[in-house]
């Protein structure tokens, strides 16, 4: 019996939680439509509170019952239009709901919770609105009569269709019982009341009928009372046995009847009109079928809303997950056996296949069972926003979208705090007071949008507000004031980079720390939490218009794609989300170099300096063999450089090492591993408490062969990696003065290849559509020109040496590479003997020595001379008939054109374009230079790269806009393919960087327009 009661109690808690969860949004809905009639919402609240009261009474939880009872009374008056709920009353109801929730969560100590304030307030409202019957006894009848016809759930038409109601109940698995109480013996003598008895019955099922009008019964002590037998007709899904215990009555008092008898009783009684107590309340049948919550204010068809659910313990689910995982392992082993030894048995193959499918599906289904709609979390925000708005005297609307986006339960739970913080931030800091908003020409009411959606296999959550936005200057000042950064460090940062400073530990922008939010543990905690979940977050803000925080989160934490590596004979799993790239150092063709600065190994990767961590050495606390070798290797490599190249290749090979470039938050570092293994989807298992002390493990997993492998905590490793690194880096920065003022933005990627023997040629990577490897014998020669067939289309091929001074290729090789450009009208392929690499460079081009057509200039990249090609120049020579260069013989256009590009190679290429079209524009290397040039008013058209040093194009345009006649200047962005969107807004037009034809067209066209104006 104890266990039984325990189970019932835990069911009660679960059920009450559900009821209470539905109360809050409905109350808020009522408040939103204040003054209007919201019968559906009021009814929902009423029903929830009522059933809570019933169950609480059943368990003898009087404190809960009493509070619920008073709340119910107030709600009932509202429902019956006796009063209209006002804000204060709703506030009291809300805080009452909170108290109820608190009590339900802690049943043991629920008596300790103080509810007097709510009780008094509610009683005051009730007294203020006297109605003819305000005693507690009417609470039983009132709801009963009303809701039967009003609630959509009742499943019954108004009186008269008793048959339907009975039938509906029967279908839902209800049984019917007649329960007889002797008023004197079984009610009064046990110091109960008839009303209490009815409530008790209602907590178990649906009371259809009662033989007496409960308000007109003899009082206790009245001798007549012993004569009165009250007969209730109860419909319930419970077993008969349970009724004895639940109602504390004798077996003899209960008689089971079938539906027909029930119908008879009802119809005969109904005519006598004494069924007042019985015509039942809503659909509170304690069945396992839960009703999906309706969207407040929008009643829907009720039947389709019902879906069968079953409460399952999360532990059971986790166990199922484990078992499914194990099944997958066993399947894999079985598969191997079948493949090697099962060939003789015919049907085994297909059997294996179906086991295969079933296993995978089983695993996927169990995974899905762990997903929950994010609405569970979102639903608590309307209340938070409401309370904050009242507290801060602001008017805020919260719009919630995408409640039904499913996410892993554990993610939703962890997300609660950071999201609450962000929402609070919106209400507290972002949204201004109404009068400030009005003064700024904004709607009086602020708006916060909370939106969840799926995108590319991840869940995105946007928190958008139309508040004040974030002022970068304020951030800068704050950061300097708090000594988080020096003013020098802030110079040259883009707005986006400044916004990111908000996430620094110890940053809090609130001018005044309010009680609501802002205790100096602001956004960095939010970021850390989000990143712990394997997510990321991004902040966007426009001053005066509002901010948007975008969270990017994985669907589930339970399965993550990861890279398996080997370090010193032990395998580890590294989450793919942290993995940026894998590089190999050493070896014959090793391009990347490991250096030792200040005793720490670092990797120089495309200009960035990354600290290195040797996984094996770190974990085993040994000295890295690797670092000892670096010095030797570097000496070896240096020696090789001095040697003839041919000889060097024969020389001893430098040991190869694999480095994973990992990122955790803003930190990037290299992880040295012994071997790269598979990439796998792994099932994450939590770490035991014994292993939590280790900083480098995030979890464990079982690999395909059944062995356990640790999941690496990349953030933990990063911390270790950066322990000494910041110091190294600052030293390095001092050494290479001025290197950061040049910025990394302007670096351009070039595709580098060989045409002859040793010479290297470069083309901007953006100009290349694809590279094919073809056999030499696939070449077709027609009319002295070379072609090859590319998906049925003949494409002309050229060798560089045919047009520019270059070495003749070695004709003996079997394969050649064909580089196919894009953004050209007539595709001509360029042949290459071998592909060298893709390099990044912002090197200064030497153009003076290369004035031949088809060549822009040359530069040293990574200590090698590279010739930069002018593809259009080449094509003009190769096919003059197709590439007639449009020439603009207009000095005016030429003299009005300004080109701003900070990348020397680009500038040279653009210069070449213009040159061939008889244009002689002015070039500006920085945004500032462009601005200075524009001041004299001569230039009407500006071609600008999307990024400029010193002054970015956005600021340039803004500054020019404020100049006299500045608005007449056209800005045309030279964009990369990937940057289409960004460029659209501020520029008058945009063209692809290397589309020469269109470039010249636009210069002409735009200029014409200008002259027309």
């Amino acid at each position, binding site marked *: 019996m104890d266990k039984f009661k325990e189970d019932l109690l835990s069911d009660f808690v679960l059920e009450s939680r559900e009821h209470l969860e539905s109360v809050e949004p409905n109350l808020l809905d009522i408040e939103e439509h204040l003054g209007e009639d919201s019968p559906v919402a009021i009814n929902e609240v009423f029903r929830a509170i009522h059933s809570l009261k019933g169950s609480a009474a059943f368990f003898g939880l009087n404190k809960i019952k009493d509070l619920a009872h008073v709340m119910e009374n107030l709600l009932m008056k509202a429902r019956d239009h006796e009063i209209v709920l006002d804000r204060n009353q709703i506030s009291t109801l809300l805080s009452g709901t909170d108290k109820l929730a608190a009590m339900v969560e802690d049943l043991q100590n629920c008596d300790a919770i103080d509810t007097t304030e709510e009780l008094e307030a509610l009683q005051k409202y009730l007294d203020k609105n006297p109605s003819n019957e305000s005693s507690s006894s009417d609470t039983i009848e009132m709801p009963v009569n009303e809701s039967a016809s009003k609630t959509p759930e009742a499943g019954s038409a108004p009186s008269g269709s008793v048959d339907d109601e009975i039938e509906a109940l029967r279908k839902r698995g209800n049984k019917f019982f007649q329960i007889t109480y002797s008023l004197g013996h079984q009610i009064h003598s046990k110091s109960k009341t008839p009303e209490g008895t009815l409530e008790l019955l209602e907590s178990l099922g649906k009371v259809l009928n009662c033989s007496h009008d409960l308000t007109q019964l003899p009082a206790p002590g009245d001798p007549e009372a012993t004569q009165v037998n009250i007969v209730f007709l109860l419909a319930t899904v419970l077993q008969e046995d349970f009724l004895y215990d639940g109602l504390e009555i004798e077996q003899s008092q209960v008689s089971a009847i079938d539906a027909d008898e029930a119908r008879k009783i009802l119809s005969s009684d109904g005519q006598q009109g004494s069924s007042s107590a019985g015509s039942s309340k809503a659909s509170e049948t304690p069945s396992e079928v839960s009703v999906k919550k309706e969207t407040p204010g929008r009643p829907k068809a009720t039947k389709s809303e019902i879906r069968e659910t079953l409460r399952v313990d999360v532990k059971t689910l986790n166990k199922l997950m484990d078992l499914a995982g194990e099944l997958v392992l066993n399947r894999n082993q079985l598969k191997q056996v079948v493949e090697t030894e099962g060939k003789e048995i015919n049907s085994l193959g297909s059997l294996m296949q179906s086991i295969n499918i079933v296993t995978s599906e089983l695993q996927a289904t169990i995974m899905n069972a762990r997903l929950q709609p994010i609405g569970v979390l979102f639903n608590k925000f309307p209340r938070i926003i409401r309370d904050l708005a009242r507290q801060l005297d602001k008017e805020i609307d919260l719009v919630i979208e995408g409640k039904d986006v499913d996410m892993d339960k554990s993610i939703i739970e962890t997300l609660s705090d950071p999201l609450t913080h962000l929402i609070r931030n919106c209400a507290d800091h972002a949204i201004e007071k109404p009068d400030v908003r009005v003064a700024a020409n904004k709607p009086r009411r602020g708006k916060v949008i909370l939106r969840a959606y799926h995108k590319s296999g991840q869940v995105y959550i946007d928190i958008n507000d139309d508040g004040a936005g974030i002022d970068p200057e304020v951030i800068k000042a704050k950061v300097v004031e708090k000594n988080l950064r020096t003013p020098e460090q802030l110079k040259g940062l883009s707005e986006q980079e400044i916004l990111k400073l908000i996430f620094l530990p110890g940053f809090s922008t609130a001018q005044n720390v309010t009680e609501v939010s802002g205790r100096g543990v602001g956004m960095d905690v939010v970021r850390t939490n989000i990143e712990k979940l394997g997510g990321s977050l991004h902040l966007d803000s426009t001053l005066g218009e509002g901010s948007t925080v975008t969270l990017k989160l994985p669907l589930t934490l339970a399965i993550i794609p990861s890279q398996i590596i080997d370090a010193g004979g032990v395998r580890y799993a590294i989450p793919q989300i942290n993995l940026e790239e894998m590089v190999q150092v050493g070896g014959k063709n090793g391009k990347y170099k490991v250096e030792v600065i200040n005793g720490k190994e670092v990797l120089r990767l495309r200009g960035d300096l990354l600290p290195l961590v040797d996984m094996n050495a*770190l974990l085993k606390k040994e000295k890295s063999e690797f670092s000892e070798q670096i010095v030797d290797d570097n000496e070896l490599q240096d020696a090789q450089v001095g040697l003839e190249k041919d000889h060097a290749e024969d020389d001893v090979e430098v040991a190869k090492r694999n480095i994973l470039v990992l990122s955790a938050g803003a930190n990037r570092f290299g992880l040295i591993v012994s071997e790269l293994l598979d990439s796998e989807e792994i099932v994450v298992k939590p770490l035991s408490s014994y292993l939590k002390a280790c900083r480098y493990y995030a979890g464990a997993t*079982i690999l395909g062969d059944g062995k*356990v492998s640790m999941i690496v905590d990349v953030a933990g490793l990063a911390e270790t990696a950066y322990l000494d690194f910041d110091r190294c880096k600052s030293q390095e920065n001092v050494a290479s003065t001025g290197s950061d003022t040049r910025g990394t933005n302007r670096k351009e990627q070039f595709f580098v290849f060989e045409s002859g023997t040793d010479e290297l040629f470069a083309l901007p990577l953006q100009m290349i559509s694809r590279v094919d490897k073809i056999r030499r014998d696939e070449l077709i020669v027609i009319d002295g020109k070379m072609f090859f067939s590319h998906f049925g289309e003949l494409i002309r091929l050229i060798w560089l040496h045919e047009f520019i001074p270059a070495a003749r290729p070695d004709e003996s090789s079997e394969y050649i590479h064909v580089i196919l450009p894009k953004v050209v009208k007539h595709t001509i392929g360029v042949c290459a003997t071998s592909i060298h690499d893709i390099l990044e460079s912002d090197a200064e081009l030497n153009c003076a020595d290369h004035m031949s057509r088809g060549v822009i200039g040359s530069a040293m990249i990574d200590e090698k001379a590279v010739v930069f090609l002018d593809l259009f120049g080449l094509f003009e020579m190769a096919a003059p008939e197709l590439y007639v260069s449009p020439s603009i013989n207009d000095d005016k256009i030429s003299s009005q054109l300004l080109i701003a590009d900070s990348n020397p190679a680009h500038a040279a290429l653009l210069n070449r374009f213009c040159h061939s079209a008889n244009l002689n524009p002015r070039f500006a290397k920085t945004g500032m230079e462009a601005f200075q040039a524009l001041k004299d008013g001569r230039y009407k058209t500006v071609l600008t790269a999307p990024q400029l040093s010193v002054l970015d194009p956005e600021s340039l345009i803004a500054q020019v806009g404020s100049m006299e006649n500045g608005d007449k200047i056209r800005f045309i962005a030279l964009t990369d393919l990937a940057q289409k969107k960004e460029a659209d807004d501020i520029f008058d037009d945009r063209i692809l960087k290397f589309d020469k034809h269109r470039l010249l067209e636009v210069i002409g066209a735009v200029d014409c327009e200008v002259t027309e104006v």
Partner: protein
Amino acid sequence: MSLRQYISFTIDDILFGLDILLVKEINKKLDVTPAYDVSDFVVGTSNLRGQVITILDIGCRLELQPREVTSDSRVIVLKSEQELSQHHKSGRLTEHTSEDSVGIVCDHIGDVIELDDRDIQPIPANFSIVSAHFANGIYQMDETLMIMLNLGAALAVEEAGNATS
């Protein structure tokens, strides 16, 4: 007179006894993935039918030499607290294990012996084989002493970092 069954095992030739109700199973060959950057007490992790269990070297707690896990080693997989809850409720057991699923490494597994509660004597004051904190009592078996291990104390997590100090 209440008889209980005890499993006997040795670590560093010291004989220990453990109530058989605490034991889930005894494994010969468990493939242990080593764990680093934690105390020697934690040997590593292993896969027990889809469940990741932590393998502990209880000898470290008892201030014995750290164990090499060899093919002769045996792992006693213990029931977790949760699995024991029935026994605790019924009052049949007062011993505790760990919240997690753990296995302990030992050198040799001996017989299962049946003992009466009265056979087990309290720890003498001059007892010095292991810290008295980790023993519930001793039993004089033929020539040797069997130490009734206090698993709850030996497996406590809080001390994971400084157990040996």
